[in-house]
């Protein structure tokens, strides 16, 4: 065992050992007596190996939004506002159109009221006329 260790150490100090051999060296050192300094040193390295920081969470892109999503959001917002604006505008236009139509209708109504006879009366008369016409025709045909 000791020879093995000696051999490995020589190789080690020459920088010729592989990782596997280095692992072996450390294992052997634990089994034998002697090699105190080497043992202590390599023990120190092993302790160093085990050091770890305290637990922490991986940063997540939680509050963050992909740039493209941001752009999409802005565009959507813009489109939404534009639509609202256009919709509002068209509603205004509709209201305006309605006002104008009602104004025209009022004008007609006012003047219609001036007539003493209602349109229905006139209509009745017109139907009367039509009836007369038909009657006349029939009458003619009958003849």
């Amino acid at each position, binding site marked *: 065992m000791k020879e093995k260790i000696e051999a490995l150490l020589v190789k080690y100090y020459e920088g010729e050992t592989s990782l596997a051999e280095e692992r072996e060296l450390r294992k052997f050192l634990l089994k034998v007596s002697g090699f105190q300094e080497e043992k202590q040193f390599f023990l120190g390295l092993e302790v160093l190996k085990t050091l770890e920081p305290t637990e922490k969470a991986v940063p997540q892109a939680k509050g963050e939004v992909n740039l493209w999503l941001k752009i999409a959001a802005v565009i959507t917002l813009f489109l939404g506002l534009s639509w609202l604006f256009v919709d509002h505008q*068209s*509603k205004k*236009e*509709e*209201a305006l*159109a*309605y*006002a*104008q*139509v*009602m*104004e*025209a*209708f*009022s*004008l*007609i*109504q*006012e*003047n*219609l*009221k*001036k*007539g*003493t*006879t*209602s*349109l*229905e009366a*006139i*209509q009745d008369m*017109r139907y009367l006329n039509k009836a007369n016409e038909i009657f006349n025709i029939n009458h003619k045909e009958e003849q």
Partner: protein
Amino acid sequence: MKKWLCVCFMTLMIGSVHAQDDAIVRFFSKYMENENFSRVYISPKMMQMAGGFLKSNVEAGDAEGKDLGELMQKIRGIRILSGEKVNGKGLFQEAMSTLNKNKYEDLMDVHDKSSNVKFMVREENGRVAELLMITGSETDFTLLSMLGNFTYQDLNILAEKTNLPGMNEYQSGTKTTN
């Protein structure tokens, strides 16, 4: 703007499938540029928009609103030419003389010492294609032409029903008072 309106007006009049009476066109265009007159043109699109407004603002159950909506749908357009501080009576006569009497039938006639009011219709296929209103007093004159495809019953809505939404608000008080 005036020129543009003029062009539009003319184009639409000429482009009208149901060709309006040439006389009326002439009559309108004669006073187009005249500053004493104001002109109103309500296009088919505007009629549509008015209908839209009505729909979104009047309850579905409102019968009168429904009738009004139906009437609006049947109207293609409205043109109004009116003047204040004009020779109303003279213009009235002029309008009457330029009309092609064959196409228009009298609907209503009201004469009193201060003003004349005349309603006429032009029929097509048993329905009214145009309602014409001419009023003239000492100082005022109005010529209104309403194109569309409606019946006398439709016109009834205007004559008798006064509770129409917005009707009161839009009363034009100044024009036809004696």
